[in-house]
């Protein structure tokens, strides 16, 4: 399992290879990458600032990954979440799931994204040309996480 909260960028291909290294039982790799997109009211986003709870965020991501490994027939998973100041089109988060079967890989990957968005202590602040403000939690995300129950 790879769990990391970090400032530096990640490489999807390298993380996938790391998870699969030396294994011959993997038939499916599903990945999801979340990127900074300008959702500010006036389309004047300069950067997102990501804050986390050192220690708890990592534990929380690990527990979400363990949850997925119990619920689906998957072999391993990686969650990498960046923090600090991130510009539009930069990577924010990477989820990788490896499995023998594609269905399990897809489902677990989507589950991990839905869960981390509502369960892991991470907060986004929008820094625009006209000021800063904290992003509000979305009802859609809450519902997406509830749907897995």
């Amino acid at each position, binding site marked *: 399992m790879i769990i990391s909260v970090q400032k530096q960028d990640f490489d999807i291909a390298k993380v996938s290879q790391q998870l699969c290294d030396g294994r011959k039982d993997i038939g499916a790799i599903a990945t999801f990458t979340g990127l900074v997109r300008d959702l500010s009211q006036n389309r004047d986003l300069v950067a997102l600032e990501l*804050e986390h709870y050192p220690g*708890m965020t990592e534990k929380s991501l690990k527990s979400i990954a363990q949850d997925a490994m119990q619920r689906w027939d998957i072999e391993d998973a990686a969650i990498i979440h960046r923090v600090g100041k991130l510009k539009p089109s930069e990577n924010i988060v990477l989820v990788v799931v490896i499995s023998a079967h594609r269905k399990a890989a897809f489902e677990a990957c989507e589950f991990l994204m839905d869960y981390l*968005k509502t*369960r892991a*202590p991470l*907060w986004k602040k929008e820094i625009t040309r006209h000021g800063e403000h*904290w992003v509000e939690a*979305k009802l859609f995300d809450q519902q997406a996480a509830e749907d897995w129950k």
Partner: protein
Amino acid sequence: MIDLLYFASLRETLNTEKEQLDLPLSINRVADLKKWLAARGSDWASAFSRDSNILVSVNQKMASDDSMIRDGDEIGFFPPVTGG
């Protein structure tokens, strides 16, 4: 002693990132602590009011108003999460 940590918008509103407290005898649960903090005045009162959507962790695990607090605990307060 307990450690209190505040995050994101809450940290900014309260202008406090962390503090240490001698645990008052009257505080056994998270609900008691919130009431005690709310008594500090305006910003604290609204942040810890009954209808605020603030979240709490005890020793880095998600907790609720009913969760017990003991000496040495680390308590985190924060708004709904918006990562991913």
